């Protein structure tokens, strides 16, 4: 990771840094990146008592040079949040409820947990920045100031409850909450919005490429660019945005360079991982099918869940370009793993069963 001088950071190497969701897919890479940057005092909050294999390896590698405290706790507990936030100078809040279908579950584990943690940080008064992990899911991808270009200036979903996506709803509300705390309590924050974070440990094909729900894989992405970011690159972006001075209250989108199209990704996947049949659905057709699904869901009073609709189509399958210019210029991030190499590693892990490494 190319980094600026340590004096451009908001924390010193011995300041306490809290990482929530530290054993997760991105979390353990964030811990690794922090340790590699020379930060020596970390507190890792994890929900499960048993930690992931990759996480333990990271801890072992830095056992002598850094103090890493692993705390088991649940962010739904105010007491656990108080313990986690105690004396923390910087918080990387990566824990989130994926709650694929359940709105209450996603909301509780994203918004309520974030509120509890923010309250603990406000009470603690030692925090210099709160780094909030968000997602591209919060963008409405309609009415973008730069038309097809989705960057940090793009509007976020104003009615996330109508998207039919629990994750989108929870993440949008989480972002709003962080900004509100920033205003009310003068908490400096940074919001990170990665695209599709891929890499070993996260197998499967993203919905932006297509869906296999109906028995056959429907390729919906076509020639669209995929907003990929390799998990190690994403973790480095999170860390740099978290520690770099002068970026308070900013939002950063994270995508890598040289992004492939959905069609190219699918071709490579089939060649490298496994062969299967897919049917390409042209954009116009997928748009009208989503509209039809949304209309039927409403007309039938929820006989079909409203997961496909016009809003969902815009976010997942509308032709869009992405930018990482702000991230590069403001925090000096450069993707250390090229997309070609990232895809190779990802496909390899998918082929051997998506091992959680």
């Amino acid at each position, binding site marked *: 990771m190319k980094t600026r001088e340590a004096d451009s950071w908001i924390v010193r190497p011995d300041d306490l840094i809290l990482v929530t969701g530290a054993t997760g897919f991105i979390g353990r890479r964030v811990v690794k990146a922090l340790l590699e940057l020379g930060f020596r005092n970390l507190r890792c909050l994890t*929900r*499960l008592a*048993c930690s992931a294999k990759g996480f333990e390896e990271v801890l072992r590698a830095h056992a002598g040079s850094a103090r890493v405290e692993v705390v088991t706790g*649940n962010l739904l507990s105010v007491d656990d949040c108080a313990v986690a936030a105690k004396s923390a100078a910087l918080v990387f809040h990566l824990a989130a409820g*994926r*709650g*694929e*279908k*359940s*709105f*209450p*579950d996603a*909301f*509780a584990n994203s*918004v*309520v947990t974030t*509120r509890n943690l923010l309250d603990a940080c406000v009470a603690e008064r030692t925090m210099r920045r709160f780094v909030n992990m968000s997602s591209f899911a919060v963008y409405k991808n309609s009415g973008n100031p730069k038309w097809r270009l989705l960057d940090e200036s793009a509007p976020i979903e104003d009615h996330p*409850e109508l998207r039919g996506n629990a994750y989108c*709803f929870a993440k949008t*509300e989480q972002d709003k909450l962080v900004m509100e705390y920033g205003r009310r309590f003068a908490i400096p924050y940074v919001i990170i919005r990665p695209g599709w974070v891929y890499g070993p440990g996260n197998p499967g094909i993203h919905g932006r490429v297509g869906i296999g729900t109906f028995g056959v894989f429907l390729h919906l992405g076509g020639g669209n660019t995929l907003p990929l970011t390799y998990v190690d690159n994403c973790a480095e972006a999170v860390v740099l945005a978290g520690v770099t001075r002068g970026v308070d209250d900013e939002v950063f989108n994270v995508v890598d360079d040289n992004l492939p199209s959905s069609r190219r990704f699918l071709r490579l996947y089939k060649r490298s991982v496994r062969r299967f049949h897919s049917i390409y659905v042209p954009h116009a057709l997928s748009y009208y099918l989503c509209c039809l699904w949304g209309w039927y869901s409403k*007309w*039938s*009073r*929820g*006989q079909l869940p409203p997961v496909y609709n016009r809003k969902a189509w815009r976010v997942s399958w509308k032709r869009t370009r992405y930018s990482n210019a702000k991230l590069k210029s403001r925090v000096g991030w450069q993707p250390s793993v090229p997309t070609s190499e990232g895809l190779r590693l990802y496909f390899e892990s998918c082929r051997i069963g998506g091992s959680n490494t």
Partner: protein
Amino acid sequence: MGVCDREPLMARQLYQRFPVRQYFDNLDDLLSRARPDVVHITTPPQSHFRLAKACLEAGCHVYVEKPFTLCEHDARELLAFADARGLKVTAGHDDQFRHSARRMRELIQSGFLGGAPVHMESYFCYEMGRAAYGSALFSDKNYWVRKLPGGLLHNIISHGIARIAEYLTADTPDVIALGFTSPFLRSIGETELIDELRVIISEEQGPTAYFTFSSQMHPSLHQFRAYGSKNGLVLDQDQETLIKLRGQRYVSYVEKVVPPVSLAKQDISNAITNVRRFLKRDFHMKSGMKYLIESFYESTIRDTPVPIPYREIILTAHIMDRIFSQMRKSPEFNGVPCLAAETT
């Protein structure tokens, strides 16, 4: 309509997502300001009794999600309390009101079985791998489900037990239960939860029943089978089908040919019925809940009988108490006893 959650953010998210006029973060405010006619209690079961009683005291009819209460004692007290105030209560046993379940009830009442059931089999399984529930349960040793008198079983089995209770005639049937931790849970280091249960229920002069709960068997069945002196019926909740089993046998090889054809015909008929209902917008995943809520509201407005007789709610709680009291003898069991049940 108003919603209430002790966590204001959770109350607000409901308000955002549904056409709800008000949201509250405490029950007293909900009762005094929204002044509801009916309150739906969908909190963890540990609070059902207390909240339902508070709502009844405020003059509201109450719909309590399953499991109704923590034990039979609480169920009896709550229902008596409602009766004394002229208010109505129901339990969220909505699976009994799905299309196929209602059709089955009609057939049994019309005498298709040849009288009351002789024997019943109820399967109510649950795939522990299902993301949200399983991960919350395994990752949090203080998860509320673990603290129920019947642990994990308490939160899940009442649907399957209520189906049997509907057709039992005695108030105190014999219950023999065998519960254990599946090899899968043991393999992931989870030894405190019982996720496999087999139960035999019998009455001296009435029907007998088997109940099965499994987190491991596949298909993960949600079935109810009732066998009478003449015929049988098989309800499959997942497929929303009802199959009639003919009691009389055909002669010789005809028995090998005609019944399979008849079954195939019934399967096709079930599929057509399901498609027809879907096209008529009457095939929601929670159609049973919709029907139960509508029936309950109607009973409160017209003062007609409640959709689930109180006897059935009490009997369901009784059978569950009997199951959990036997589980408690197991060293693996970590359910927290219901104090009311323990003292009576």
